[in-house]
């Protein structure tokens, strides 16, 4: 069984469109994350939710809006997509929000903006 699953795996769209990426974890974890990995493989935290509450909100354009309907799901909606949004987006989860907790990652969503 997949622990952290993201859909879709690939997303190709035009500049200016709005798109969503979904993430679900079946590990019973309290905390979920969104990361952006650029073409140089640099991994940067975007958001983190703990029990549906936003706890980390890095410097991310407000075109990006996360939503956590329950603690097993964390979705990412992106408005007015720009060329610079092209990247791989990873969802992750951890048992708690404590810094000693390892994270479990999904396989990523590769977003390409035309």
């Amino acid at each position: 069984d997949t622990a952290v699953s993201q859909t879709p795996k690939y997303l190709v769209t035009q500049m200016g469109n709005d798109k969503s990426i979904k993430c679900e974890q079946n590990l019973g974890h309290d905390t979920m994350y969104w990361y952006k990995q650029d073409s140089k493989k640099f991994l940067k935290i975007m958001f983190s939710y703990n029990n549906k509450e936003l706890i980390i909100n890095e410097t991310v354009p407000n075109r990006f809006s996360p939503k956590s309907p329950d603690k097993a799901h964390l979705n990412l909606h992106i408005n007015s997509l720009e060329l610079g949004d092209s990247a791989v987006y990873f969802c992750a989860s951890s048992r708690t929000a404590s810094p000693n907790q390892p994270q479990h990652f999904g396989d990523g969503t590769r977003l390409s903006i035309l």
Partner: protein
Amino acid sequence: AQSVTQPDIHITVSEGASLELRCNYSYGATPYLFWYVQSPGQGLQLLLKYFSGDTLVQGIKGFEAEFKRSQSSFNLRKPSVHWSDAAEYFCAVGAMGNSGGYQKVTFGTGTKLQVIP
């Protein structure tokens, strides 16, 4: 704020040879340290972690890492590399976020390992 440096962007080793990937961190308190591996087209997978206690930690797939506080290092090692070890390796440090009590993990820029027959 914490930071992580992986000085080697790319390393090539022969199959069967030993491997050491370097990681240096900067953090004011005792760090929580992790090594993750990313195979092509996949997410990151935890190899091992260090919080306290024995400074030599064992992980999955035959990897180990040694925490050296005096050198602010947490280098990853493997005695004999297999072709399937070819991947990107990330060192990471976990610390309290600004919100307090919540983790913020900072990842290094990664080291790409190539294994030649």
